């Protein structure tokens, strides 16, 4: 669906990340207005509001699309509100994109914003003994950093990664984030600073782990036809470097068996019986691939994160060699290294070497997290995947002052929400 499957990004907007302690609606409204201004679109011309939900801010957070629509003033626009954990932003983009591509609307506003609690993310309140997210805290004391640390230690044991490598990711991202006015942490830190910070979950130090933040991000998306007409109507009368468009939104779930332990689970899937094994109840032919019956299903390769990226590349009709920059979910410094491999920037076990050679730093072969990443922002859950797209679009426009990836034409974002939500967006110009 190359070309014909695209939607244009007319506008981007953000509220700076921080710990402001105000209503998430305020951040979302700020970001939405910024995106509308950036697009040169009036609110009343928006036909769909697609909100990414927040689950820690009461009912208005569960109906984020309507909350933002009301804050902007009821205009009769269609509304969509979606939750997909850390992938909520991508899910909101996917909802808007689908309605644009279906021809139901021409212009959509995507908004996500959050007001975050302090410290470890704890499960939503109440005594919920049938909720694995509640139970993993109760029975194991397993926080989110527990899982990040398991992956990090695994990299050390299997690939020879060191704490210094992880710290070097943080140091790199801090150098990137120093130039980003929307980032919460703009001090440059070095490897020694990271290693001197207390260990939270062995082997990860405090500065290896992303904080939780307040923030808001928004996009104005439109059909390509509308974007061309709109560009022609602007005073500049042209599209400059070309219209930035979204070529893929990957929102896939894992393929069975997922053999990497994922939040909030107590165990992996079992690899004892692969999908190709004969099952007694075999009335369902075809299996998960949906009709590809010419070869037997095999164990999925590369893990869920690789599957998320592969789906994005396939939809966009590109490969890792076409990408100029990536914004990935560095919930921990070590996790950024996992993403290098999942995105195919390097092979399995080669991420540390890629980092050490400076390939993922600004000026390198493929800068990763030029925005500064989560380590400079802290995570504002429903806003984060949208903010990743804001950064990629800004880079593709050539407007990322102080952190510009020279000549960027293709960017990819990658992220994963707990309970099996993939999130990857490809944008290009």
């Amino acid at each position, binding site marked *: 669906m190359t070309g014909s499957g695209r939607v244009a990004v007319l506008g981007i907007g953000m509220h700076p990340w921080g710990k402001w302690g105000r209503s998430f609606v305020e951040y979302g409204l700020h970001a939405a207005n910024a995106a509308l201004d950036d697009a040169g679109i009036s609110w009343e011309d928006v036909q769909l509001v697609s909100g990414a939900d927040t689950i820690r801010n009461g009912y208005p957070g569960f109906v984020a699309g309507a909350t933002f629509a009301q804050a902007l003033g009821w205009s009769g626009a269609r509304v969509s509100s979606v939750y997909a954990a850390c992938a909520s932003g991508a899910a909101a983009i996917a909802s808007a994109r689908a309605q644009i591509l279906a021809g139901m609307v021409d212009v959509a506003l995507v908004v996500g914003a959050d007001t975050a609690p302090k410290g470890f993310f704890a499960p939503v309140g109440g005594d919920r003994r049938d909720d694995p997210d509640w139970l*993993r805290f109760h029975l194991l004391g397993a926080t989110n950093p527990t899982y990040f640390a398991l992956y990090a*230690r695994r990299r050390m*044991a299997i690939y020879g990664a060191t704490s210094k490598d992880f710290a070097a990711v943080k140091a790199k991202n801090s150098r990137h984030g120093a130039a980003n006015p929307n980032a919460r942490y703009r001090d440059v830190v070095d490897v020694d600073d990271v290693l001197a910070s207390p260990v939270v979950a062995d082997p990860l130090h405090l500065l290896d782990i992303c904080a939780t933040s307040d923030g808001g991000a928004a996009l104005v998306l439109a059909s390509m036809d509308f974007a061309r007409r709109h560009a022609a109507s602007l005073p500049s009368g042209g599209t400059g470097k070309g219209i930035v468009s979204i070529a893929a939104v990957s929102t896939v779930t894992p393929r069975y068996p997922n053999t990497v332990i994922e939040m909030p689970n107590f165990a992996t899937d079992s690899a004892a*019986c692969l999908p190709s094994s004969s*099952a007694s109840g075999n009335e369902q032919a075809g299996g998960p691939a949906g009709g590809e019956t010419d070869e037997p299903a095999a164990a999925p390769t590369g*893990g869920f994160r690789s599957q998320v990226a592969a789906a994005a590349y396939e939809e966009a009709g590109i490969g890792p060699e076409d990408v100029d920059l990536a914004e990935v979910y560095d919930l921990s410094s070590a996790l950024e290294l996992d993403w290098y491999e999942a995105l195919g920037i390097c092979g399995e076990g080669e991420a540390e070497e890629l980092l050490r050679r400076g390939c993922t730093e600004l000026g390198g072969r493929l800068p990763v997290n030029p925005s500064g990443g989560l380590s400079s922002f802290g995570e504002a859950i429903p806003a984060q995947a949208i903010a990743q797209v804001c950064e990629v679009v800004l880079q593709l426009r050539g407007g990322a002052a102080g952190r510009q990836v020279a000549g960027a034409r293709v960017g990819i974002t990658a992220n994963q929400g707990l309970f099996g939500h993939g999130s990857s967006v490809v944008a290009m110009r």
Partner: protein
Amino acid sequence: MSPHAPSKARVPAVEGWFVPDDASAALLGGRCRGCGTYSFPRAPLACPNPACRSGPAEEVRLSRTGRVWSYTDAAYKPPPPYVASDPFEPFAIAAVELEEEKLVVLGQVVPGVSASELYVGCEMELVTATLYEDQTNVYLVWKWKPLDRPTSTPSGGRARR
């Protein structure tokens, strides 16, 4: 405390997930009657294998030993609903791979074993241990315990991601 106070009851902190025997602790998982795949906790409604349309898995005792896939610790007190000791004692957490079932199961590591004593590939066995207690009950959970405690930590482990 009164000398006549009854001793506290020892109850599992979660029902049906493990056998809380002191001598033969075991996780209660599921095995699909159709395709034979395993699950933990037991898949109560349907087989997790998308190519299989069997119903609820039958309850089985999972292997009591396995090897560490990865490990970490909790240096800071986790938030509620974790019931932390006061003062808080850091604890290690291990993800242990069961060979026959080919699944990796999380558990706390028994008190007194720090993360620095673990390594990927380290052999562990399942035990029943105290999670927390209140006025009337001692709440039990499964924990992992190293079968041996090496002084050096061999590198490596089987690469499977």
